[in-house]
């Protein structure tokens, strides 16, 4: 079996296997993908995301996004190559979290690779545009004066705002948030807030290849952070309702406790899908 590093140039080799929502991450600096080739056939492949790789305050981790293997031998070879790649980066821990409905044979592959597996609710919450329409926060129609949609923003001002938010927020955020371009986000639905001529909050929504929406960043760091956040959510919800059909799915990641509380505030009682959680300490 031969290892093939998957990049934007050769991603079509996994066209039939790789889900489109995962495929669009290939090319982002924190994502890696490899495939094991047996002749002309792909016997196994995986995509993972590095976290805290260049962060001295935290131990670097690898989060597996997607795995496929036709049999245990292919899976074993896959993880052998994976282990070589992550050891070069000094990864301390590997983590995998999948919805039970999507896990399939991944559980056995992970167990065989030495992952300890537990059942755990997935951190993402899935709602629809139709669910947004029922939110109490939408009863107020007025847009705050300090709120601006992203389509109104110059790139340089956007970057300044992103850096301002990153350096002032304690919220967990995407590894490559500082470098993602403005056109990664749905600029009609995403928005920001300003105070004293500075952007100090963003609500950023990305439209996945499958048509689903995913909230990539929601934080406000100004003096009226709580009100700003609610105003941004209201604005984005209105825009999303105008633009997308009711059944459009929205993914709300709960990366930390703050995000959990915020999602819980708007969707009380909402739970993530039942899932499997695996982790492995790396040498």
């Amino acid at each position, binding site marked *: 079996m031969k290892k093939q590093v998957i990049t934007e140039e050769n991603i079509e080799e996994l066209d039939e296997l790789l889900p489109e929502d995962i495929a669009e991450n290939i090319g982002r*600096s924190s994502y890696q993908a490899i495939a094991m080739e047996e002749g002309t056939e792909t016997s196994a492949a995986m995509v993972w995301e590095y976290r*805290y*790789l*260049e*962060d*001295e*305050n*935290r131990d670097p981790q690898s989060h597996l996004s997607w795995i496929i293997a036709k049999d245990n031998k292919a899976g074993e070879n896959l993880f052998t190559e994976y282990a070589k790649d992550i050891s070069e980066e000094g990864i301390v821990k590997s983590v995998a979290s999948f919805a039970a409905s999507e896990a399939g044979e991944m559980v056995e592959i992970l167990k065989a690779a030495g992952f300890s597996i537990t059942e755990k609710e997935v951190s993402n919450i899935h709602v629809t545009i139709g669910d947004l329409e029922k939110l109490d926060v939408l009863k107020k129609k007025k847009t705050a004066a*300090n709120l601006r949609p992203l389509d109104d923003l110059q790139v*340089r001002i956007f*970057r*300044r705002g992103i*850096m*301002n938010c*990153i*350096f*002032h927020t304690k919220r967990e955020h995407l*590894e*490559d948030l*500082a*470098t993602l371009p403005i056109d990664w986000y749905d600029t009609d639905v995403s928005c920001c807030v*300003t*105070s*004293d001529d*500075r952007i*100090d909050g963003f609500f950023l929504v990305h439209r996945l290849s499958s048509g689903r929406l995913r909230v990539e960043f929601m934080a406000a760091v*100004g*003096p*009226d952070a709580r009100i700003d956040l609610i105003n941004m959510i209201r604005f984005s919800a209105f825009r999303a309702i105008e633009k997308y059909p009711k059944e459009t799915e929205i993914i709300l990641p709960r990366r930390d406790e703050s995000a959990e509380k915020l999602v819980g505030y708007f969707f009380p009682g909402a739970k993530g899908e039942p899932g499997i959680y695996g982790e492995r300490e790396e040498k």
Partner: protein
Amino acid sequence: MILGEDYQITLGFDLVAFMILFGMCLIPKDKREGRDTGVRIFVSMAVCIVLGIIFELIRVLMPEGVSKFGIYVVVIADVIVELLIAALLFLFFLYMDYKLYASRDHQRRHIVLYLMPAFIFVILCLLWPVTRKLFGTDTHFLADMYYYSVLMELAYLFMTAVHLIKYYIVFGKKPFFHPFSIYAPVLCGAVITYYLGYNCVFLGFAIGMGFMAFSSADSRRFIDKDTAFFNRAYLGYVREMLSGGTLKRSSMILFEAKGDRMAFSDILRTELPAHSEVVCLEDGRFVFLSDTGSMTELKALSELVRDGVDDYDGSHSDKILLSDDIQCRVFKDGTAAAGIIQGL
């Protein structure tokens, strides 16, 4: 209206307050501070104190056996002094609000809420015939107005106290400003005024403001007079605190501007995150200190600054000439940080 007041003691307090304000005027000032909202509020407070002292002197110095006209003058002066005390407390609250949030927009958005105690005071005064019947009092309008004004002042004192506690939680470990130290003389002035009948609220404020002004002047020894960033002395102070473990800084970016450093300092102010901690060294080098440990974020920030410089250099003849080598460094711990900073 203070009952049983000894005018000589009041005059003495007012004279001391005036001298403190005069002393504050002699402190060397930074011209840039004139544009700062916080400084403007501070100056407004000083103006209130001066006007309050003037009207208090009018009230106190009016001779005994005064004519009917003189009585009106005393009453009007008394009312104005009370309103100036209320104004002073409101401005003090605004000043602490600005110190805490450093945002004019925040004050603009909340000004109606902040003026609510004053609105309630005005409404109570306008509806005095109704409230008089409601509370069953038979006192004079001015007496009731005085008590309403005391309630308004207490409301502003309470709001300020909340801000002070928040300020202390957020900034308590930073140098230069000790909020409870200035609150103490104000409280003493209010207590003495209320219980002993000697009006020394203005003196209390003058002492507190004098402390703030001298503290601010003292802090300027850490400020570079050209760029208004911190200077090398501040770096020494930071190094000591890092070595002692009382301060945490995880990283730095070192920029070197070989050309127009004033223009570069303006670009840093624009491109860097709000309230960034930047030290300006003598040789055109600027050090940005941060709590982030992420090299990715530091590099992204340095690229943003570089883009700002490239734009500037492209359109100006006096160029900034930022060095190609922008150093981004993450510290392992406080001792390592102190060592690196010492080598700058």
